[in-house]
């Protein structure tokens, strides 16, 4: 039975050719979903497909090659017609299994029984979009959809391999972290997508996003750093992330807790907390009142803010005016105008160098 290694080889090659999609499924089932096997094997898939074909070709050659009866020795498969028949049955079985495995990425998604939609939902449902990484074929979509549908409250999950996106519709506001966790359990990774301005649905609270930019003064040395906080209302909840580019800090989560008029932004990675009596007017948050941090001195002020939509949040620090350096023309006309407007006040004018 010298054909046996060929048969096992073709089966193994077919398995590897399908591993980009089956791998995460199997590994996810045993709790090793995040090791990224599928992504690792995906580039080699054409080679495994070729190897499968070559090994099967050799197997068919050995099974169907013409054999002279005189060449047969006792114990070989050509010795008796019955032995060769069973060899061919095994070969065809292996061929079917190998072909099924090798083409799984193409038919796996269609063959899935994952319900993309479960029951009706109304137009006020919450929609969360996730960016999913690690998908290597369309078959991955079904497995992720199945994982998302298992999250309580999810009524529809649609995954798009081409766009690397997952759109989740839920009947109630869900924490995006639960959805991300569900994706990770299937062996892939996900990030919350902050909607762009064009995505902002008018007149609804969901899907609004924006950016708040501030500067930090840390310690008595007056060291400043740019702080960028991206906030969005995702599925009815405030969510976001922050960067401190000067310190190489990127994409750290901001925990937003709303308790009545009090809103807390917690930048746990930087051990900074902003607590404010925010007014949630329409789709806006206004008024950043207090800053807490683990630093001796921390001054946070808005130096600029992006309002991605008119309806979007406006986070305004107490000293907003003092954070901008307004441009002056050579005549100083802007300063003169303001100086005269403030005629009723006592005034201190300072001419300073930034360094």
């Amino acid at each position: 039975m010298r054909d046996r290694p060929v048969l096992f080889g073709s089966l193994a090659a077919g398995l590897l050719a399908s591993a980009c999609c089956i791998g995460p499924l199997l590994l996810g089932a045993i709790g090793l979903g995040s090791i990224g096997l599928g992504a690792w094997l995906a580039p080699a898939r054409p080679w495994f497909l070729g190897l499968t074909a070559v090994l099967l070709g050799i197997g068919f050659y050995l099974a169907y090659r013409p054999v002279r009866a005189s060449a047969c020795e006792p114990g070989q498969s050509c010795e008796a017609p019955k032995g060769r028949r069973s060899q061919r049955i095994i070969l065809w079985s292996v061929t079917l299994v190998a072909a099924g495995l090798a083409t799984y990425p193409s038919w796996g998604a269609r063959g899935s029984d994952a319900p993309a939609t479960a029951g009706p939902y109304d137009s006020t449902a919450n929609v969360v979009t996730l960016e999913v990484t690690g998908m290597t074929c369309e078959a991955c979509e079904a497995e992720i959809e199945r994982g998302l549908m298992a999250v309580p409250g999810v009524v529809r999950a649609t995954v798009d391999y081409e766009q690397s996106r997952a759109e989740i519709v839920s009947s109630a506001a869900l924490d995006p972290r639960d959805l991300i966790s569900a994706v990770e359990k299937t062996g892939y990774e996900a990030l919350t997508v902050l909607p762009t301005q064009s995505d902002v649905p008018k007149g609804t609270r969901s899907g609004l996003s924006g950016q708040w930019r501030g500067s930090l003064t840390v310690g008595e040395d007056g060291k400043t750093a740019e702080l960028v906080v991206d906030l969005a209302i995702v599925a009815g909840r405030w969510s976001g992330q922050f960067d401190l580019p000067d310190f190489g800090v990127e994409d750290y989560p901001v925990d937003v807790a709303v308790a009545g008029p009090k809103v807390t932004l917690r930048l746990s990675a930087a051990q900074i907390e902003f607590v404010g009596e925010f007014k949630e007017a329409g789709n806006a948050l206004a008024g950043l009142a207090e800053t807490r941090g683990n630093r001796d001195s921390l001054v946070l002020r808005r130096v600029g803010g992006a309002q991605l939509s008119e309806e979007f949040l406006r986070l305004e620090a107490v000293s907003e005016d003092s954070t901008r350096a307004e441009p002056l023309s050579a005549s100083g006309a802007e300063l003169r105008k303001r100086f005269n407007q403030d005629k009723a006040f006592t005034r201190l004018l300072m001419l300073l160098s930034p360094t």
Partner: protein
Amino acid sequence: MHEAVFGGIATEKLRGYAVWEPILRTDNLRGARKATTILPDSRVRHYWIDGQEVGVAFKPSLGLKDEVAWDVYLVYPPGVEWAGTRPPKPSFFMHQLHELPSSRRLDAGALAARLRQTLSDAVK
């Protein structure tokens, strides 16, 4: 400076103007924006001018002949108006320049005291 002056004088009857101008070669708008954090007070407005025109314009008000006006602190009581292109003379000033009398060298405490006095006089 901030603690002594704006931190120590809580009244809304005080207004401040910080004009950031390039004196050193490295001075720029970005630097000015960062520098605004030195004076974090809602009563202070910050300006950036990409040239020394304003500093030059204030030279006569301070009696400067050679140096451009910078690192100077000018106090104006209520009622003073800036008419035309020439800035008005301050009622009091302090500085950190070489050309001006050392008796007026910046002392944040003394400047704050003078501002309090001016505010007090304005009420009377």
